[in-house]
């Protein structure tokens, strides 16, 4: 019984070309277009390493912390994406002035009773160097305090932390196409694809309801509890949609080389929760909206698109604006919650923010399912 229905629902779903387009092909096409657009941007505004100089005097030689920090900022760790921030030359002060004059360097660092940064003009490059120095000074003063109080703590650990912070600084360098924004577009795309799982939810409700399809009438006169069939239908829908999302994920990760961090288990978990959210959302729309199928599909596409827009899919600042001005909307937007799950996994690993997002998504799932149930529960129809 279960298997009979499940297999036939799977067949019906995977042979539905129109809905397959929306749930699978459309997100993949969009991802390809995104990738094309972003690769052009990053080509044009590719982050180039900054040439700087450090005046190699006695004070610099004594400041091992700065030496380490600069080395860290200059080092490329071998990975192409992890290129260092600076090309460093060690010079005398006079040489530095000359290089600056000839625009061979953006600025030089000079230690003379403290750290000084010498630049010729102010611009993006200069503010990056300054950002780096400010960050270092903050760190080094903390370092000094710690060291003064407890010299034993002058261990590699602390210095490593300082380096990690420098690496972080490098990543958030104010390049327009900084990696976090690009990645966020793709995360958003997955969220949209999850919501498009609603197509299958809609299909399954339509099939089971006698007032929505003639096949539904046949199912309603069969000697089977309708809700049992519906559960099987939803399971089939979730199966196919999850498979499609994993295909999309594989396409993004393996073909377009989008980074998802390394929490693969949690990423798939997010996909599962997102998929169920999408499918139940479609079932909800199909059962609550009392209009033709065309209208329902319109509502489904429209609302998924709006959600994705508010989560920053077309305009990256949108997510930021919402989260600072009206954070509630962020929590009422399943697409944003799904996006944010990926985002927070990528940047912070497993954390409370991730679980809050998952929790709210589960609330949505329960809400959509409950509304659908209350409508499907009615066994006779007022009109067919």
């Amino acid at each position, binding site marked *: *019984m279960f298997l*009979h*229905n499940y297999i*036939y629902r799977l*067949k*019906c*779903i995977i*042979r*539905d070309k129109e809905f397959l387009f929306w749930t699978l092909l459309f997100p993949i096409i969009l991802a390809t277009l995104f990738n094309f657009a972003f690769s052009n941007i990053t080509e044009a505004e590719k982050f180039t390493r900054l040439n700087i100089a450090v005046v190699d005097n006695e004070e610099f030689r004594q400041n091992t912390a700065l030496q380490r920090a600069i080395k860290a900022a200059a080092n490329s760790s071998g990975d192409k994406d992890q290129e260092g921030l600076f090309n460093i030359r060690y010079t005398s002060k006079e040489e530095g002035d000359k290089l600056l004059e000839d625009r061979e360097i953006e600025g030089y660092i000079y230690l003379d009773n403290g750290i000084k940064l010498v630049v010729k003009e102010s611009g993006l490059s200069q503010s990056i160097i300054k950002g780096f120095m400010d960050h270092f000074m903050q760190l080094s003063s903390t370092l000094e305090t710690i060291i003064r109080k407890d010299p034993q703590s002058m261990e590699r650990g602390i210095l490593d932390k300082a380096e990690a912070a420098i690496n972080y600084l490098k990543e958030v360098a104010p390049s327009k196409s900084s990696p976090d924004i690009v990645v966020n577009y793709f995360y958003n795309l997955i969220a949209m694809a999850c919501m498009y799982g609603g197509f299958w939810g809609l299909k399954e409700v339509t*099939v089971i309801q*006698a007032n929505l*399809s*003639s*096949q539904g*009438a*046949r*199912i*309603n*006169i*069969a*000697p*089977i*509890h309708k809700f049992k069939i519906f559960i099987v239908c939803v399971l089939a829908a979730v199966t196919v949609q999850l498979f499609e999302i994993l295909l999309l994920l594989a396409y993004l990760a393996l073909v377009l080389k989008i980074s998802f961090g390394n929490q693969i288990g949690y990423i798939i978990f997010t996909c599962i929760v997102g998929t169920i959210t999408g499918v139940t959302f479609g079932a909800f729309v199909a059962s609550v909206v009392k209009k033709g199928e065309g209208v329902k599909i319109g509502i489904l596409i429209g609302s998924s698109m709006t959600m994705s827009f508010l989560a920053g899919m077309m305009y990256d600042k949108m997510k930021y604006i919402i989260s600072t001005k009206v954070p509630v909307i962020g929590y009422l937007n399943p697409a944003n919650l799904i996006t944010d799950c990926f985002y927070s996994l990528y940047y912070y690993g497993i954390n409370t923010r991730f679980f809050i997002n998952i929790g709210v998504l589960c609330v949505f799932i329960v809400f959509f399912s409950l509304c659908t149930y209350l409508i499907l529960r009615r*066994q*006779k*129809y*007022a*009109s*067919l």
Partner: protein
Amino acid sequence: MVIKVENLTKRYGDLIALDNFNLEVNHGEIFGLLGPNGSGKTTAINCILSLLKYDKGTVKIYNKPMAPDAYDIKEKIGLVMQNVAVFEELTVYENVDYFCGLYIKNKKLRLKLVEEAIDFVGISYYKDFYPKMLSGGLLRRLNIACGIAHQPKLIIFDEPTVAVDPQSRINILEGIQKLNKAGATIIYTSHYMEEVEQICTRIGIMDKGRIIAIGTKEELKDMISSGEKITVELFSMDNKILEDIKGLPHIVSAEYRDNSLIVRSSKGKNNLVSVLDYLKSNDIDFGRIYSEPPTLNDVFLEITGKELRD
């Protein structure tokens, strides 16, 4: 008693689709529900099957109250809907198998039943076709196979021959008779009186949500005053003759139009002879002559004052 419906009333807003509808169907019958479009046939079927809510009345099937969760009743029923209700995504075979599987759990038995049903409606050749590739008539046959594969004891056909080619129509009508011979009780709705006359053992004539007459076709025809209809080709005519013919015994009405004299007689034999005797004895030349027994359309016409066909 297979079905007993009492005082079924169904409203769609202000429109009364069923108005104290009563019906009894007995075991082994092919019961015909004959009525023009919009008379409430489909609504009646859907209410009987507990698909539709109704405002008043009771429905019993096999002596038990029918309800959406009366699964023991439901498994004995097969429905062939007015609209073709199959999945576009499934082939002919898969469609029949799917719907049959909602009734029959045993896989081996199901396999056999599905093959039989497909054979029965004569679409074995199209087993692997998708519904899109089938003609209207073949689709209707598939629709039937989906409704009867589980070998129900009670089968309801709701206008199964609308928009089908003559060959499919014959196949369908013969099939229904075969199912009946094999033991199934049939309810057959249609607005084609010829079909109903041809296959139904008892007929209910419906109009405006009510059954206005019920019985075998002979009983129905006996209910009305007019008997056979006689048509005589005549190339000239005057009022005197028309009045004379109207005055003949057993003649209910006579009119002359399109070079034809149309005479309706009351019940009884030899009415044709008396008309012809009159024409001969008055030396009136006439052409071809037809005599038709009364039809269900005449019954409908006499009771409602309008034609069954629209």
